[in-house]
């Protein structure tokens, strides 16, 4: 081997070791910024050489349109087989998998026992698939090299699993009611947080917490609708927990905080207390149109201000001051963007449905927003790689000019098929699109078409109708500063994904799909 190759390899290895990153929680951090700050291996220069490293079919049984969730990555786990980088992958049918990221080998599988007995003959629905729906969260244990994965199983119990072996290290704990739809777990100061949506299983749409030290579980209901930001609740450095409420009215007089952003904080008795709330001025109109506020908000600190960014299916962004969400009336943001998409004010197939990314580049605060459907006629950016019709990513700089905050459009990506999630790693924006059939309305069928003569127009988000029409997911790597496409998975991914996402760490990008395949692309 030539000497220079050995040097480069050594440097790469060194870098991978000394600058390695863990991806222990969905969205990269407590704030769900989607910014993988410590990533050093991927660069804008080398990502074009990314290739499929491996793909594995995990024995995860889908439920409705759900199957597997974005993996969590632990870079150095002391396993019986030695030190390994591990991916922890949750499957909807109460499975947890430990995968060696170097080889794609499945090192263990944990299938949770259950205290919940499904109704005989019952089935779920797309919105309420049943099963394990929350991305777990991982935390280091007291012993170096040991990690614990926390998960909520279908029966609503909290599981604590040894990342090295897949063994449950303590008995399952009562946490929340069974058969709900909790979203990605977040762990802060020894407390597990989540929120549930859609009223699935009769479980309240609420914040849920579990204090690991006292084993106290708490609930806070904003009296809103489903709380379904893809990355689960976000937590700022002060421990304040933020999330969205959809599908209900906003009326503070009646203490109803639907279609808004709500923050809570744990008190000394381990009960969550309301801190603040915000709803846009058209919140109730949005509710009527089913334009849920459905995107995990991102708390970020920039230029000495404590900010919060939120968005929704309506497809405009709000910038809020975390010291007073929406000002005195709770309805006045620091800034509201024009529409990025969804000129049709559609409740399906258009809008923001996935997860944003916020990252800082020197003195520039970036916000990358993935969206579904056509870009809005209102959105113009200095750099436009397309005028997307199926979805894409719009990038903004969050700026303060003359004392006023604003979203300044920066670039617009290529066209995508329902852009879902963005992660930014070392200047590279990784974006996955889902390729799913996202329609929720029964189409008209002309009388002379095959099987024709059907008046559509009614609501149907059912899996049986949508699965056959789903396509393929694609992973993209873009220059996070310009939106230029650096790499695409092309047609290498053969299935689609629904309410899942991607993971990036240590020179690898992971994407699970509906067919139970976990893809690993990378430059290592």
């Amino acid at each position: 081997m030539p000497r220079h190759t050995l040097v480069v390899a050594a440097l790469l290895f060194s870098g991978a070791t000394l600058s390695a990153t863990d991806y222990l929680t969905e969205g990269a951090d407590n704030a769900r910024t989607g910014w993988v700050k410590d990533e050093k291996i991927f660069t804008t220069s080398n990502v074009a050489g990314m290739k499929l490293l491996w793909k594995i079919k995990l024995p995860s049984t889908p439920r409705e349109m759900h199957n597997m969730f974005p993996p969590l990555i632990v870079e150095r786990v002391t396993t019986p087989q030695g030190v390994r980088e591990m991916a922890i992958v949750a499957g909807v049918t109460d499975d947890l998998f430990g995968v060696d990221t170097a080889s794609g080998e499945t090192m263990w599988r944990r299938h949770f026992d259950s205290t919940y007995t499904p109704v005989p003959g019952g089935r779920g629905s797309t919105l309420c698939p049943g099963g394990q729906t929350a991305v777990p969260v991982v935390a280091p244990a007291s012993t170096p090299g040991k990690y614990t994965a926390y998960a909520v199983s279908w029966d609503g119990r909290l599981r604590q699993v040894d990342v090295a072996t897949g063994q449950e290290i303590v008995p399952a704990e009562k946490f929340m009611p069974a058969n709900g739809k909790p979203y990605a777990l977040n762990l802060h100061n020894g407390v597990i947080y989540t929120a549930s949506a859609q009223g699935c299983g009769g479980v309240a749409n609420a914040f849920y917490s579990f204090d690991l030290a006292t084993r106290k579980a708490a609930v806070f209901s904003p009296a809103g609708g489903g709380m379904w930001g893809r990355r689960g609740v976000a937590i700022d450095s002060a421990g304040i927990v933020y999330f969205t409420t959809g599908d209900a009215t906003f009326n503070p007089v009646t203490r109803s905080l639907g279609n808004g952003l709500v923050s809570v904080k744990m008190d000394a008795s381990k009960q969550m207390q309301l801190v603040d709330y915000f709803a846009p001025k058209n919140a109730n109109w949005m509710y009527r149109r089913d334009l849920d506020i459905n995107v995990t908000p991102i708390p970020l600190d920039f230029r000495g201000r404590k900010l919060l960014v939120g968005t929704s299916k309506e497809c405009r962004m709000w910038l809020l001051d975390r010291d007073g969400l929406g000002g005195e009336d709770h309805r006045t943001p620091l800034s509201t963007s024009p529409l990025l998409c969804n000129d049709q004010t559609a409740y399906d197939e258009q809008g923001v449905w996935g997860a944003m990314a916020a990252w800082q580049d020197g003195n520039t605060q970036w916000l990358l927003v993935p969206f579904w459907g056509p870009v809005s006629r209102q959105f113009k950016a200095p750099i436009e790689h397309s005028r997307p019709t199926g979805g894409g990513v719009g990038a903004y700089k969050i700026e303060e000019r003359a004392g006023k905050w604003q979203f300044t459009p920066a670039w617009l990506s290529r066209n995508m098929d329902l852009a879902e999630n963005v992660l930014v790693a070392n200047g590279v924006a990784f974006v996955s699109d889902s390729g799913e059939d996202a329609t929720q309305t029964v189409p008209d069928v002309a009388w002379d078409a095959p099987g024709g003569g059907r008046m559509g127009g009614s609501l149907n988000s059912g899996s049986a109708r949508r699965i056959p029409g789903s396509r393929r997911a694609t992973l993209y790597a873009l220059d996070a500063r310009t939106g230029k496409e650096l790499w695409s998975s092309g047609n290498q991914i053969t299935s689609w994904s629904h309410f899942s996402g991607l993971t990036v760490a240590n020179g690898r990008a992971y994407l699970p799909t509906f067919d139970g395949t976990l893809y690993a692309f990378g430059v290592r």
Partner: protein
Amino acid sequence: MRITRSFIVLAACMSAGVAVWAQGRNIGPEWQAASADAQRTSWQRIDPNISVENLSKPGFELQWTTKLPSPLMSEAVTVNGVGLFWPVSLIAGSTNSVSLIDNDTGNVQWTRSFGLSRGTPTPGCSGMVAAAARPVALAPPAPAAPRAGGGGRGGTGYRGAVGAPGEGVPVELSQRGGGGRGAAAAPAGGEAGRGAEGARGREGAAPGRAGGGGGGLGRLPGPGYAIADDGSLHTMGWLSGKDVQKPAPFLPANARWSDPLVVDNVLYTTTRSGCGSAPSAVWAINVSNETTKPAVSWRSNGGSPIGAIALTTTGTVIAAIGPGQAAAGGYANAVVALDQKTLTLKDWFTAPGIEIASAPLIFQHNDQDVVAVAVKDGRVLLLDAASLGGANHATPLGAASVVASPPAAFAPGALATWQELTAMPPAAEGQPPMMLGGQRWLLLPTTNAVVALKVVDAAGKPSLQPGWTSRNLGATDTPIIVNNVVFAAASGRPRSRAILYALEGSTGKELWSSGTTMTSYLPGRTMWASNSRCTSARPTARSTSSGFCWSEGKIVNAC
């Protein structure tokens, strides 16, 4: 200068300081037929936002304008809940097309062309555009006041709790009574969430299913209907405008038909002679069968029908027949009553010296249907719907003194009626407040004003007394009434701008006007109200880009 006219639809909406509208998915009332209902009252009984009180203060303003492709457009019919959440208006156009617009935004959802227009080959047949149609209930339901307030799900507001160590979250706060997107409490087993996927929309609504026209959220009343220039009846899906049933032959080609009405799976319209090969007739087509749609007609053998038919609350078809030379057994200057299914003649009114000048409308007085028509001598006649003209077929129940100088030139659908409503406390907790009916009014436009007549009881019979006359508004079209507010549009014909006025229904006092907002004139009766919006359609010079919309200085969906 050659001016190609296109059409602008303009909507004004309550948008500020209105609490009720904002509660829940209260999507607001529908405009279910041309002239509002099967009785052609032009009356929107209840609206959560439009009221005398709210129109007396700022907040009603232009929300959007939208360009549509046809030079002339009809009054719309509206439907709530297309795709569950969209309130829409279906508008027919003179270019042999229909368009669907989103009532919230003005976005054109689709435009459906039925092919090249056959034009208007006969002089006198142009300039009239009939509306599209949708199923409508025979009689409107008793109005209920909109619910005020509105809490969150469960109504108890935000709250939290903490459980004992090791016991999980407290059950009472973690179980919910409501579902996700409109779902009932979910059973354990995964079926929950929106819950609508099964029952509400598994296969979509059956084509042709005529509902009660309630228009509640997520309940489509049945398909949309439109008649094309070739006389065929099209049955369309709301989502795309596609024909979901095979187009059915119905009228002679190039006929001039009136605003159709669909009740109990029968679509009614009228044709006048002299346009195409159509006779002066009333037509009905059964739309209940997807493949075979039998049609029947009744020929006047005399005058042409004036405007559209109306239905009594018991289903009798009422048509006004204009002047003409009646053959033996024929009718001219008459009001006729026809059987709902067969269109066989049941009854008629005609009297020497009386020239019928408007289409009929029907209202109830002492629980009896009363037919009102305007006549050429400037009066309004009231007829007993159960016995038109009495035993001699020539005696009206009552008549107003002259309200317009003869010979009065009323528009075919000149008349409108409404009744003052007052919200009463609900009969029981949890039930909506009911509305108590008060003074009945009859409205009609004259050459430069709106005249309001009071319907009063005289020995058990209705009679008409002067009420109020608006200030000089210029030439106006038939007003519409929304929740005690009269909307009258000064047409601005032929070259001035139209102005929309809101008048207090009981006094005629001007509450609001559109001022200079509208930039062109109204070609005819093209106004409707739904979802707290009063919408009108007007022609204007075509822009280089068609089909656009914009909001005026604010987020358009704020209301």
